């Protein structure tokens, strides 16, 4: 019998701990237990056999750490082969009459994936794939992925299992006392991702005793539509007369596990500290129990690496701002691969309170696949909201879904056969909640009836791929009301029908409705309200619009979705703007004072950008207390007042040449701080605050320059990177910011950058200066290698190095041109070098 068939009508028993038992047999601290499959096959077989004798249906092979990172390929194969043979032999030798299966055990590789670690996702998939292929070759009945404490790593392992075998896959995660994985995922988030990827059984093991796992188990049972597995520890270990004992004995353990089984858990076993005695006790107590029927849960969910967003009564907000359509600055950012700009849009929307971010980076002249993959990767490194991947490029869609750490929203499919046949296989493989547009080969139907027909067609087609209604969300397409007076009505009517009659969730890109009309926000927000009233589950919307946010919070308060109107009271203040008249009055005062201050500064610093060193001299005698001699903008920059710096610059621009502001005000202000830093009257935090304030001023100046004909002046290009192997780059980012302040066009290659990539950037763009950062003695060799390669391929380039472990001596020995002891030193060098 196959394990999944057996599982349909039975409670399945796993085995218990292996490590503790091996230690008793003499396994030494730090010794690799997997080698015992070969060196001590009888002991391993015997342990497996005692579990089968105790009633286990599934015994897990002794391969927890069997991977190609720990073992050479030949030895790995020997180990997996021996491990499965040992388990198989135990099954044959056991007197137990129950159904017996052998699971290939897969534990975490111990590597942390990028961006927090430096192991690539695809490399991790391959690490697991190697062991899994061996498991298939040597006859495992199923794969058990267990003790995973990182959602991303779990995804890599599950993907490897699905791509390299047809075996059933059980996936079990290790939760901490806070009910989260080590990297932050909640049980609901894991259920969403793992079910989406079609794991056959999902659940929890290790870390905690059964009592502490109760909350996590409950959440699994609430959301999971597949069988749930639970394998707790026997509590916590302690030492008694030199022996390791655990504080939860078999009686208490089995009682707790029995109650899990009564609640619906279908696969039960033990982890650290449990022995055959524990399993026997569980089997004894439950052998006559009827297994609880597994039911399909109707939760529509997406997830990030931390949490799930469940589509329920309260509408979900999907931020629309990461999208170049109609946005000049965004397009420019895409062309220049300015990821920070895109991340800024993401952060701003999260701060405004959206639940999901739509991600669309399509532009004809860029490589959308590479860009979408990179943006997805970068966004999920710093923002914990689920993403909605929005593209018509199937290759880009797959690339993004593959590296996405969770269950994404997919935007979109429609009634066209061809599109469904492209998208649904991706959903089947990677999971996802699919936005379904109610249009087909004939375009967008005018009538609600037609749109519903298309919806039904999509539901049927999705079912062929095993995708249920709960993973489809219908967009009945908001059309421009200025072009067709009935457009909004048709949209709303079909929305209502799909919600009520087909029982599906709905979403709308609401902003379209007001296209071509003045004061669009008013129409859009009222339409949004009407749509919510008609059952809208999610809106793709602009969270920067106060009108939209007001409508959202008011709707929730009026619809019984906001207890005591608490959210409304807390949030609404943020979205009520100060009357325009009051704002203007305040602004006028600022402008007047700043322009008079400017006049006094102009006389002083006429040197301009080109003569940087001359300016330095002119400002040498200044300090913060010289109030008379510094302008208001300069003061704002020196003091690190970001908003003030931006406002003052905006005002100055009205009357002055942007370039003059840079040369006469911003650069001198930066110099004051730079010199203070060098003289140790100011410190790094102050240097950075000023740099940030200057950045705000530059933003305003750039905006102005983009409008007018005046070209921005660059001091030249500067490639900056943290070398291969190094994964922390705050130091590099500090230098980057200061360099930008001083007018350099910085090409930031990021962290953990291989020498070839640095050389490539330098050569392709004919860059005169490179800055390399290394943090560890272990990565300085990579720095040296990079310099060598640069000398060969780009002999013109000057190389500055910096980082915690470097010294002048060290820098000399690896052939650098300059050792930057801090950010200012590097800037001074760069200025002088060009």
């Amino acid at each position, binding site marked *: 019998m196959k394990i999944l068939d057996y599982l349909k009508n039975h409670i399945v028993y796993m085995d218990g701990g292996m490590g*503790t038992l091996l*230690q008793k047999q003499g396994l030494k*601290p*730090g010794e690799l237990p997997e080698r015992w499959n070969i060196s001590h096959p009888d002991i391993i077989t015997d342990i497996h056999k005692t579990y089968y004798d105790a009633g286990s249906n599934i015994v897990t092979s002794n391969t927890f750490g069997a991977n190609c990172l720990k073992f050479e390929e030949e030895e790995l194969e020997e180990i997996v082969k021996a491990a499965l043979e040992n388990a198989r032999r135990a099954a044959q030798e056991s007197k137990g009459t129950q159904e017996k299966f052998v699971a290939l055990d897969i*534990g975490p590789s*111990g*590597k*942390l994936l990028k*961006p*927090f*670690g*430096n192991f690539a996702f695809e490399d991790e998939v391959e690490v697991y794939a190697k062991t899994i292929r061996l498991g298939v070759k040597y006859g495992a009945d199923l794969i058990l992925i267990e*003790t995973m*404490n990182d959602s991303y790593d779990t995804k890599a392992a599950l993907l490897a299992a699905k791509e390299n075998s047809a075996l059933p896959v059980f996936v079990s995660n*290790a939760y*901490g*006392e806070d009910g989260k994985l*080590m*990297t*932050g995922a909640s049980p609901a988030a894991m259920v969403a991702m793992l079910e989406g990827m079609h794991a056959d059984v999902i659940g929890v093991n*290790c870390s905690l005793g059964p009592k502490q796992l109760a909350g996590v188990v409950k959440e699994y049972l609430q959301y999971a539509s597949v069988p749930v597995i639970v394998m707790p520890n026997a509590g*916590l*270990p*302690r*030492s008694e007369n*030199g022996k*390791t004992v655990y504080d939860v004995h078999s009686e208490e353990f089995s009682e707790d596990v029995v109650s899990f089984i009564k609640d619906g858990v279908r696969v039960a076993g033990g982890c650290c500290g449990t022995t055959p005695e524990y399993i026997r006790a569980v089997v004894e107590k439950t052998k006559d129990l009827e297994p609880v029927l597994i039911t399909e849960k109707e939760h529509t969910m997406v997830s990030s690496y931390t949490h799930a967003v469940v589509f329920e009564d309260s509408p979900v907000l999907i931020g629309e701002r990461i999208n170049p359509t109609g946005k000049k600055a965004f397009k420019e950012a895409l062309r220049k691969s300015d990821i*920070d700009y895109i*991340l*800024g849009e993401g*952060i701003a929307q999260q701060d405004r309170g959206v639940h999901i971010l739509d991600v669309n980076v399509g532009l004809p002249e860029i490589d959308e696949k590479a860009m979408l993959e990179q943006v997805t990767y970068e966004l999920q*490194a*710093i*923002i*914990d909201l689920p993403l909605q991947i929005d593209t018509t490029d199937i290759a880009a869609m797959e690339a993004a879904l593959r590296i996405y750490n969770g269950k994404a929203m997919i935007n979109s499919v429609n009634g066209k056969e061809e599109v469904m046949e492209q998208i649904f296989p991706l959903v089947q493989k990677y999971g996802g909640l699919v936005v379904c547009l109610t249009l087909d080969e004939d375009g967008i139907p005018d009538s609600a009836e037609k749109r519903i027909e298309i919806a039904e067609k999509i539901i049927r087609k999705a079912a062929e791929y095993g995708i249920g209604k709960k993973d489809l969300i219908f967009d009945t397409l908001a059309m421009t009301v200025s072009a067709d007076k009935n457009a909004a009505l048709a949209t709303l009517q079909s929305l209502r029908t799909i919600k009520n009659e087909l029982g599906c969730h709905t979403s709308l890109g609401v902003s379209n409705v007001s296209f071509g009309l003045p004061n669009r926000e008013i129409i859009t927000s009222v339409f949004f309200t009407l749509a919510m009233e008609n059952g809208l589950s999610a809106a793709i919307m602009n969270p920067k619009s106060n009108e939209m946010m007001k409508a959202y919070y008011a709707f929730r308060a009026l619809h019984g979705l906001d207890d005591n109107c608490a959210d409304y009271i807390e949030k609404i203040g943020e979205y009520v703007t100060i009357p325009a008249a009051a704002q203007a009055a305040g602004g006028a005062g600022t402008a007047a004072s700043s322009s008079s201050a400017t006049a006094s500064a102009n006389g002083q610093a006429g040197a301009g950008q080109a003569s940087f060193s001359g300016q330095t001299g002119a400002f040498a005698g200044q300090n913060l207390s010289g109030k008379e001699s510094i302008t208001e903008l300069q003061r704002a920059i020196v*003091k*690190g*007042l970001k908003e003030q710096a931006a406002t003052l610059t905006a005002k100055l621009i009205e009357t002055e040449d942007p370039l003059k502001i840079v040369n006469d005000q911003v650069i001198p202000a930066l110099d004051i701080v730079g010199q203070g830093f060098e003289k140790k009257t100011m*410190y*790094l*935090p*102050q240097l*950075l*605050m000023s740099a*940030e304030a200057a950045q705000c001023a530059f933003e305003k100046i750039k905006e102005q320059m983009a409008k007018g004909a005046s070209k921005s002046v660059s001091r030249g290009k500067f490639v900056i990177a943290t070398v291969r*192997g*190094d*994964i*922390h*780059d*705050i130091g590099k*980012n*500090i230098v980057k*910011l200061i360099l930008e302040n001083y007018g350099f066009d910085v090409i930031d290659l990021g962290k953990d950058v291989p020498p070839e990539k640095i050389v490539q950037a330098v050569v392709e763009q004919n860059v005169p200066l490179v800055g390399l950062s290394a*943090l*560890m003695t*272990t*990565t300085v060799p990579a720095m040296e290698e990079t310099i060598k390669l640069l000398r060969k391929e780009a002999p013109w380039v000057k190389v500055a190095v910096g980082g*915690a*472990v470097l010294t002048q001596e060290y820098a000399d020995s690896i052939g650098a041109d300059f050792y930057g002891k801090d950010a200012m030193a590097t800037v001074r060098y760069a200025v002088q070098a060009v």
Partner: protein
Amino acid sequence: MTEQIIYIEKYDTNDIKLVHDAEVWRYAGYKGIPGQDETELLDLFKKVKAETLPVLSYKVCYRRMDLSWDGDRPVLPFGQEPKEFVSKDLARCIRGCHQIVLFAATIGMGIDRLILRNQRTEITKALLMQALGAERIEALCDTFCEKLAEEFGKDGLIMTPRFSPGYGDLPLDTQKDFFRLLDCNRKIGIALNDSLLMTPSKSVTAIFGIRKLCPEERVNGVKNKNKMENGSRMENKNEMENKSGMEIRNIEEIHENKCDRCNNTACEFRQQEERKK
């Protein structure tokens, strides 16, 4: 006795000593503490604390092992062949000890995410978070060591200062042994990459020795306690922030011809030990 158990300790924020502001500023490259007129900076620091402290999760895993000696050389479970492993600095640090404790400590991934996010948008904040993290992981190590010292004290035992891979002549490569022996990834979620960098970045691994108090110490207290244990950590953290070597010299002074325990040249206990050797 050598124990098989790797213990895990988790701490609440309340268990760890309060944030030492001056220490954080020092890590951030600021000399002293910003004055009252530095309102921007002080406000930012407040914000940083409010955002960062709640995401920290203080965890330590450790293991206690017997230590045997081959003459002056401790037989440590490091390297390919433990019997050949030599680190003179570490040997000096744990001289006279019969047991060692290996531990790994971390304040979790949450702060790394915050730093990563903020260095894209507000780098000063990221810098202060970085500094706060550096201060917090040290505070965690101090708390952990103090609590253990208290326990050991009850049994008449005393701990040496902690000593980390990469410090003095203890190769950074020893990180691999710590990870092998402590199962850090599984126990408290620290990963080690090929460059021997730990993630979460605010993590520390270290070893210290445990020895018996000599009779003199039992009566008169540990004379060199301050010198030995007051702030004398020999660490190589991820960022290598404190690489002074000062502490090592202290230890050398202590050990010259003096009893390891009471710092007395003519200690009987020491002479007995010498004879045994």
